[in-house]
């Protein structure tokens, strides 16, 4: 048992390392993705909220000050970037559609595990670098956030990433049947973007919808951690998010496993 456990970690750490090594091979792309892109996003948010408050000529909008919005605007895209899996989801879909998955199927590797570990490895590396931008802005403008709450908030987003990956796994199984599922990926990611509260803070949504959304796992990706670090919510909302994410993972994994097994039965080993 101990041997299996060690082998499991050894293998998965190697997958994480693979993501880091592969991405660092392309230094320029990595630098843009991990540093320049977050910096530009933060810049846009700053300009947008400055302009909104300037033109509104008001100290508060919807009960929140400019600094509240700035804090949300700076941290929501940062956490939102962690909470998506565009790159790895399209790689998973492409593997199934093109038949490159043959390499995984003929080795003692689990497709789910292989991509999950890579996703985590990549996200940990990029998060460390891309966090510089929101930290600098928060410090410079003295935005209202609780620094001590950052580890738990980021921890929640990484936990939510397990759910995001499981949903990517489910989507990728559709490629066994339909080959091209890009549109499905797009619709799913846009929906998650909205439900997570990155596009519009959940506070600004109609109360009934906001209440319902907060019971779902999706705000764990953006709204809950941002609300927690900016002081708009307490640890009870974080706990509730952990629970709803756990329940969702428990539901999504068997669905993915079922579709995966059915998909393999119809798989033709494309391209080999």
């Amino acid at each position, binding site marked *: 048992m101990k041997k299996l456990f060690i082998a499991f970690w050894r293998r998965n750490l*190697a997958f994480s390392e*693979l993501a880091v090594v592969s991405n660092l091979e392309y230094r320029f792309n990595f630098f843009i993705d991990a540093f320049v892109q977050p910096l530009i996003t933060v810049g846009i948010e700053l300009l947008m909220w400055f302009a909104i408050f300037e033109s509104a000529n008001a100290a508060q909008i919807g009960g929140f000050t400019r600094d509240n919005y700035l804090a949300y605007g700076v941290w929501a895209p940062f956490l939102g970037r962690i909470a998506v899996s565009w790159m790895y989801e399209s790689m998973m879909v492409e593997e199934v559609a093109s038949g490159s998955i*043959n390499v995984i199927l003929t080795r*003692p590797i689990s497709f789910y595990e292989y991509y999950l570990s890579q996703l985590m490895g990549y996200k940990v590396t990029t998060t460390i670098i891309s966090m510089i931008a929101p930290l600098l802005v928060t410090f410079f403008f003295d935005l209202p956030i609780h620094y001590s709450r950052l580890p738990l908030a980021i921890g929640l987003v990484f936990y939510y990433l397990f759910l995001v990956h499981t949903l990517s796994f489910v989507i990728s199984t559709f490629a066994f049947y339909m080959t091209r599922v890009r549109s499905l990926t797009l619709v799913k990611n846009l929906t998650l973007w909205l439900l997570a509260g990155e596009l519009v803070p959940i506070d600004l949504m109609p109360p009934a919808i906001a209440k319902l959304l907060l019971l779902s796992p999706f705000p764990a990706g953006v709204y809950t951690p941002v609300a927690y670090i900016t002081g708009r919510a307490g640890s009870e909302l974080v706990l509730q998010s952990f629970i709803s994410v756990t329940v969702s993972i428990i539901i999504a994994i068997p669905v993915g496993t079922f579709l995966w097994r059915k998909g393999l039965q119809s*798989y033709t*080993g494309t391209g*080999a």
Partner: protein
Amino acid sequence: MSFVIETKDLGREYKTYQKKEGVLNSIKGMWNREYISKPALKNVTLEIEGGQIVGLVGANGAGKTTLLKILSGLIYPTHGSVKVLGFEPWKRETEFLRQMSLLLGQKNQLWWDISARDSYSLLAKIYDLDIDTARMRVKHLSEMLSCEHVLDTQLRRLSLGERMKMEIIGSLLHNPRVLFLDEPTIGLDIVAQSAIRNFLQSYVRDYKPVVILTSHYMDDIAQLADRLLLISKGEMVYDGTVNRFLKSTETSKKLIYRYKNDQQERELIFQESELSEKLNEVVKSGEVVNLKIEEVDFEEVIHRFLAKESRI
């Protein structure tokens, strides 16, 4: 006797969508699609013992890659039974996967963006190998293939021949008991083909895995295979040794000649019994300045045999 590979009445059908020409039919296809079922493999029964190199030969679409995919667990059979090392391959049990390897000559198995050495280190962890033992094995195999100098180069920057050598090392790193090689020399120049053939020959002699080899280069099969399986339209049409196959087919000869005004040599293939008749024909048709008679090579015999089979 226990066999490493056993199949009984193994078959696989593929369902294919039939798209009729034109935009209207594309629109119609949104809700109503016509599918046809095509058998790719029909009732194949096989028994393969340990330590054999089996050459699997057939024309494109004959079913050889389908057979390889079923044996390696990539796809499910539609009917029949299959056991490889005592496992049903399609169940993809870890113990089975740890003991076999599939090398697809037309696909990369290693990671494109990293060096071969990094790939091997990852493979060692996937197969739970001792890292020092794996390093020793990489050293040994790369020396055998004379490619130590490219181990630290990113895979995407290697030539086709170098990349294939790297792929071969990767597929042998965990010392598999069964090795499926699908076109391992495809696209390689003669020197690289020969290097890989020689390597495989000495590797199999030393480590004794079961090897199932498909190739369009008959030299691969003639040099390496102990046993030949010929497959045509999904059915096994020959199962035996290469020598027995050559003896069982009609003995053919090749007449190579050149007329005085010709720039290039001409060739004529005929049965041994027709020698005088064909010689007369050639001599009567012009002034022959060069003439020789050769045995028809293995590749030609196979092609003629399969062409005949596929017309049936």
